[in-house]
């Protein structure tokens, strides 16, 4: 079963790099450029969201708040927090409660490894299916 990951990142370049790595690792990806968009995407997504990847600094809503808001409807969702040494959420290097922290800077390989640790092995490409309805 393909795992679904929601990425919230307001840096467009970084968000596209995340998505590129996740697609390559055969995850289903949902992306949002802000907390508001993320709530909208989450509401519109019927299936499971296995993991939330969230930067520690979002312009529209603090990362802990968006995590809590999303977890209200998706309590099982795991969270990978991307730590930014220049914009720590609390004390430097402290992860949010219930989140795994991956500190910037990191290589795409490290991200892929971290995902495998959190979610288990990534699915084969052969098991990928498109489930969205056209139109």
């Amino acid at each position, binding site marked *: 079963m393909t795992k679904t990951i929601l990425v919230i990142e307001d840096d467009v*370049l970084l*968000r596209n790099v995340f998505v590129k790595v996740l697609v390559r690792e055969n995850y289903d990806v949902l992306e949002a450029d802000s907390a508001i968009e993320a709530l*909208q995407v989450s509401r519109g997504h019927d299936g499971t969201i296995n993991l939330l990847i969230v930067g520690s600094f979002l312009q529209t809503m603090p990362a802990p708040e968006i995590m809590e808001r999303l977890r209200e409807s998706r309590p099982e969702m795991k969270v990978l927090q991307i730590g930014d040494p220049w914009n720590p959420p609390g004390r430097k290097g402290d992860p949010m409660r219930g989140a795994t922290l991956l500190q910037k800077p990191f290589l795409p390989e490290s991200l892929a490894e971290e995902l495998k640790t959190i979610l288990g092995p990534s699915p084969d490409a052969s098991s990928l299916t*498109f489930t969205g309805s056209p*139109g």
Partner: protein
Amino acid sequence: MDTSGLANLRHPVILIVDDDAPLRNLLRKFLQKDYEILSAASGSEALELARLETGNIDILLSDIEMPGMDGVSLCHRICGERPKTRVLLMSGGSVVAPLDRAGLPLPFVAKPFELRKVQRLLRELLAEPALTPEDRSVILVVDDEVTRREHIHRILTENGYSVRMASNLGQAQMLSDENTKIDLVIAAVMSDGSGVRLAEHIDASTRPVSTLLISHCEPEALQEMTGFSAQPEYLPNPFTPEELLKRVGHLLRKKDKAAR
């Protein structure tokens, strides 16, 4: 974080721009098997991404109505910086057909749409040669026979060439003497044989322009008529669109090679 992966793109690259995140996600999911996808939630994000992306962006697939910069302005900006980028716009409202900077209509698809329709339009766009008004080849067609002239005009414009037309030698000389870009002349020999004189006129000038003569005559007879040292480029009349396009493509490639 290593961002060098962004430059290392193999499939055609599509930049999806839409402020509707669920639609952006749906489009990406549907297209990511065949394309490298970049996505942006706004015009300004798209510009930032396009500025930092060192590889090609083959297609800009953008919504028209977005807060901030609209899709048409975005298209003008991106295509100004990346003339090879093709565009497919999406619109939720009943907008007037969007135009590019040269005033030519831009392809667009009305929302809601079948994803397969977008997929088909993208394939069609990629199959077309990436032409901009600047690098589109200009062909001067000189023919006194109006039906054939229109026929040639239609074949050439449908295949992305820019065409100028003249019905006689005087008009053609005026057009070819003007300081305008002409990459190739297609001339019928014409009832008074003036096509041959035009070929001579152009051959004698310094312009590196070939003339393709259309004639019932055999090439040897034409060579005698023109007095050229080599056989003139010649297309026997009647011809099929494929034959015409093949000769035109060949002559333009030859010209490009000579220019390099």
